[in-house]
């Protein structure tokens, strides 16, 4: 692992960490808690309050108001309480978008994690040279900025001169001038391919790091006891790396819920937005497109709640690490 991990492991923190406070309270009035830590936190807290705290509150309030174009130009917004949420959740289109987002996110996360595990096992099994070649390829893909990656993939799937159509046609299938982005189903298939391509490297490296923790003695012992390849994987290796797998799957689900950039940049190529919207692009369309800030806020609040609910397990896991 990295230097950071090594030092952290080599020098465990004392079990009861009571580091010396910066200043011993030698003044006339003794303070129970020194002010120093709060001073140190101040800049971070201020910027978080300004850039995230205020918008969050504004959004909560606005989602309870009627706030459209007229309010943009100064008309005071009137409170309608949960009317926006009622409108939102009685609109069948909302459920279409929500269902689509969740389906896309679950399928993509599952495909990504399965391929990632496969790659990690493969890295573990092949010759070192091949492993390094594979790792370099994955790193390069991982390093691509989203916008650049989307641009290249748009070129690869280009209906007239894209490589994908060329190869499929050369393979005997009729994909001459096939437009992948017109049909919503194949639009999401393309999106899934791209998002998977982007996310597999993280999964593969994380799982591979987990695999290196599996001691070879255990695996060899199992082998001598007659466990076949599949059994070794199922009963020895997977249980040992289960914590990593859980975290990685959770992160993929959370990340695949927020694919605004990918979907938006694919929509740019001329597909019908209403048929290909996921939650992120739907909010964008409501807020920036039709200036319905109240509804946009309501959907945003929903997305935030969904993310926090999903993130809770991950955050709890990290908190445990902080306390250890």
């Amino acid at each position, binding site marked *: 692992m990295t230097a950071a991990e090594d030092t952290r492991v080599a020098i465990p923190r004392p079990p009861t960490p009571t580091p010396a406070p910066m200043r011993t309270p030698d003044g006339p009035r003794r303070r129970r808690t020194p002010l120093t830590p709060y001073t140190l936190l101040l800049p971070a807290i201020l910027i978080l309050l300004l850039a995230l705290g205020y918008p969050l509150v504004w959004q909560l309030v606005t989602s309870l108001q009627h706030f459209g174009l007229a309010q943009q130009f100064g008309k005071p917004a009137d409170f309608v309480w949960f009317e926006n949420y009622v409108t939102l959740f009685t609109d069948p289109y909302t459920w279409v978008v929500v269902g689509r987002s969740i389906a896309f996110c679950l399928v993509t996360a599952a495909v990504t994690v399965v391929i990632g595990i496969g790659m990690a096992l*493969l890295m573990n099994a*092949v010759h070192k040279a091949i492993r390094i070649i594979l790792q370099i390829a994955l790193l390069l*893909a991982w*390093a691509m900025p989203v916008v650049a990656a989307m641009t290249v993939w748009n070129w690869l799937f280009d209906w007239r001169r894209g490589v994908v159509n060329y190869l499929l046609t050369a393979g005997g299938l009729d994909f001459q001038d096939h437009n992948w982005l017109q049909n919503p189903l194949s639009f999401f298939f393309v999106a899934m391919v791209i998002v998977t*391509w982007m996310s597999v490297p993280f999964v593969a490296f*994380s799982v591979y790091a987990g695999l290196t*923790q599996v001691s070879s003695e255990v695996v060899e012992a199992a082998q001598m006891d007659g466990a076949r390849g599949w059994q*070794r994987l199922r009963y020895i290796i997977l249980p040992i790396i289960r914590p990593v797998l859980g975290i990685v799957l959770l992160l993929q689900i959370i990340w695949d819920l927020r694919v605004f950039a990918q979907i938006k940049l694919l929509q740019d190529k001329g597909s019908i937005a209403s048929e290909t919207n996921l939650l992120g692009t739907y909010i964008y369309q409501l807020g920036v497109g039709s200036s319905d800030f109240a509804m946009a806020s309501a959907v945003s609040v929903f997305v935030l709640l969904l993310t926090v609910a999903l993130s809770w397990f991950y955050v709890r896991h990290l908190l445990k690490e902080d306390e250890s």
Partner: protein
Amino acid sequence: MTVATSTRMPAVAGRRRPRSRRRIRTSRILLGALGIALALIWVFPVYWMMNSALLPNVILQNTTPTWLPFGGSWDNVIAVVQGGTFFPALGMSVAVALITVVCCLAFAFLAALAISRFRFRGRRAFVLAVLLIQMLPAEGLFIAQYKLMGTLGLLNTVVGVSILYIAAVVPFTIWMLRGFVAGIPVDLEEAAMVDGLSRTQAFLRITFPLLAPGLVASGVYAFLQAWNEFTVALVILPQSSSATLPLWLRGFVQQSASRATDWGQVMAASTLVAVPVIVFFLIVQGRMTSGLVSGAVKG
């Protein structure tokens, strides 16, 4: 990079019968071939971007793709750079990234110091807030942030977008630096203080140098986030004259699409955006993985 000692299985294969050994060898060759094939698939888009960037458009018009590397013409790159919009966008991106990196490092460093060197009331709440905030998607807040920046008159400005980037990146940076600070034992500082240094001197001379790798890694992380960000920028910087590089690239593609898309130039533009990122990314990636799944990996 993790180049750990291998835990490969065929170590005990020697005792097997020759036939089974041959089977293991063929299966290893097959696995190797699979590995190479996957490597080619994953690297292909990156290769294709650079390859197309260096091919003249006349060749790209062909129905048969030109597979072999690098036609060796820099015309596309030159045309893109001389187009007149690249340098303003580059300047914008550099300014935003620099402000984000500097402020982020300063704020996150102080906060990391607070949470790893002090026990105080509200510490747990702060750590929890930091961890939750870093999970929030930009899509969930960008409309409200757009209104905020509109009210402050900071739409289409470097300052406006930087404020949002700092807030978005600072939580994870705090978390990353916390690991580094916690890895440096307090005893080291205390020993230096016994030797007569003041608390501040001990910190500057002992702890700070040990933190340098952590600061570099966090700085590169912040840089990458600011450099690549698209979602918030799209909302906060609607004017094309204030576009950062990702927005510029998108605008370039759209502009080019109104004629027949000049893929050579578009790919040259992508390459220009991607290359600095790839370089920085290769420096920092090990730390990013370990920060995200740390704890889980070490059991």
